[in-house]
């Protein structure tokens, strides 16, 4: 195993940790930190297929998205109404672990369709899986946006192995930022002055 492989698996471990943190955390600061670290892992895995200059776009975009969400200080927006307390947290953790097992199992088959290194596939699948879990278990706008950002981050890792277009990278960055901006808006909208 080369140093690059070790670092790639480390990035996968980072993504696993951050996506589970996003799933479990009830504290918005921890969630934003996890999101920022998540994009660090995304940057690393994308860098396997893309030049550093282009990969860094993912990192910067992700951090900007985190900053946009963080700027609205969504303290109460992260508090779940469902799957609450320790039992809820244990349930989420258990489901995330099942998702990890599924990701490890599916990575082999997915390799037949999308030729990519194993840690890249694992990282992408874990993000997509945990993002979907987040989307399926919440009714809060912030969590929905974090879930979508996680799913998209996983997809972007996967897609970077097959597509290297600068325009696609740019448009995906716009969508990431747009989603974060929309998340901030949705958190604030009910309290804003009505425009009729």
């Amino acid at each position, binding site marked *: 195993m080369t140093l690059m492989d070790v670092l790639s698996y480390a990035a996968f471990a980072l993504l696993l940790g951050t996506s589970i943190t996003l799933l479990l955390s009830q504290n918005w600061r921890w969630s934003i930190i996890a999101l920022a670290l998540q994009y660090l892992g995304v940057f690393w895995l994308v860098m396997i297929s893309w030049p550093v200059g282009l990969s860094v776009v993912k990192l910067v975009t992700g951090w900007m998205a985190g900053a946009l969400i963080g700027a609205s200080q969504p303290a109460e927006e992260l508090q779940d109404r469902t799957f609450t307390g320790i039992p809820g947290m244990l349930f989420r953790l258990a489901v995330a672990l099942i998702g990890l097992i599924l990701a490890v199992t599916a990575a082999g088959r997915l390799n037949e369709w999308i030729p990519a290194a194993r840690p890249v596939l694992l990282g992408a699948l874990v993000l997509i899986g945990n993002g979907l879990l987040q989307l399926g278990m919440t009714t809060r706008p912030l969590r929905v946006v974090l879930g979508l950002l996680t*799913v998209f981050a996983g997809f972007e890792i996967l897609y970077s192995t097959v597509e290297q277009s600068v325009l696609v990278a740019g448009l995906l960055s716009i*969508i990431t930022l747009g989603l974060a901006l929309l998340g901030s808006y949705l958190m604030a909208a*009910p*309290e804003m002055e009505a*425009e009729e």
Partner: protein
Amino acid sequence: MSAPLLWILLPLVVAVALFFLRARGALVTILAAITCFVLAALALLVPVASLVEIGPIKIEIADTLVVLGRRLVLANGMRSFLALIYIMAGFWLLGSRVAQVSRLFVPFGLLMAALLVAAVAVQPFLYAALLIQMAVLVSAPMLAPPGTPFGQGVLRYLIFQSLAMPFILLAGWSLASIEGNPSNQALYTQAQVFLALGFAFWWAVFPFYTWIPLLTEQSHPYVAGFVVTMLSTVTLFFSLNYLDAFAWLRSSEQLFPALRLVGLIMVSTAGAWAAFQRNQARLMGYAAILETGFALMALSLGVGQGVSLFAQLFVPRIVALATWALALSISQRQAGFRGFQDVRGLLRRSPVVAVTWMLAYFSLGGLPLLAGFPVRLVLLETLASQSTGAALWALAGSLGYLIGGLRALALMAAGDDPWQVRESIPHIIMLVTGALVLFLIGVLPGLFLPGTTSLLDAFLHLR
């Protein structure tokens, strides 16, 4: 001058300008509607990629605009589609004053229309997924305007529509791989799976359609109607690109039966839910699902008659949904109702709203003399000639939907309130216009519907 500059960038710029002017509600609405109608008129009158002489001035509108190495192409064959989108947007935006929606609706609605036109124009068309996703993001503030609590419908809409993008992008990569390696059968399966999943989310097929009734129930029905109709129109139309571009897809043995099955499930389940539905706004959501189901069934009849019927379904659907959304908005504004019982006596209290509402409802149900009937009749006849069972299921779905309408009608006609007309003159003008169009298309289908097949001019292999 190029067509994308005119029909994409100009409305984008106008939409941004209108956003900053949004405090001037009436002016913004009129400017947006004028922009849309002028663009629609230009689409109908001015040929693209040929010389136009206006007195001494000679103008050639090129069909292509290159942006960052990718092309936006609006060829001559796209003019009918452009006219349809901008006429639809124009009337919908114009009605927003009457429907009393948030100020964000007009600029964001125009922005959404321009982005969706860009999605259809961009080449290679895998980029369309990204532009449609942007349109989805832009539409969310209209559905959740400032100062109004929003429900789960908006979030589910955002989730389900967003999940389409990755699959469509991966499908684009698979399709490009097929061109490089046409003998690899696994790539065909892969492309079909990605396309199926992507379009399943975009079209909101069963079981991904739960957000539609939620959205129409929890958001302003006029805005929800616009978003649902605009997105379904563009994604249905956009799907023809794939059918036109890939011969292997047109000759696929699985595609058309799969479309029929999906369409049947949508029609029958939407009909069943509509029969028992107790919320009027949700009924509109089921109507939209039913219509998408019928569109997929038309497409399942194959290239030729099927695609022609598919194109002819667009106009009746758009007019009926727009009219219904307006009637629903006005009655909700007047009575603040949500539940089924709240429409009791509506026919006496607001007869124009009630009658228009029912005309739109039954047009979508395919009742004779209304816009939905002529195409629906041919569709069911053709379907029956290929599969009696499928036609019966589709009829059963329609019947369920009509039962929901008859229940609503019975309630509207009930009560002994005195007869009165509470609608304002602008309400009456907008509603009666919608109802008249529905009626005229219904009684004179030969005059209106054959022209709608010109929507297919953009597709060389589908006409």
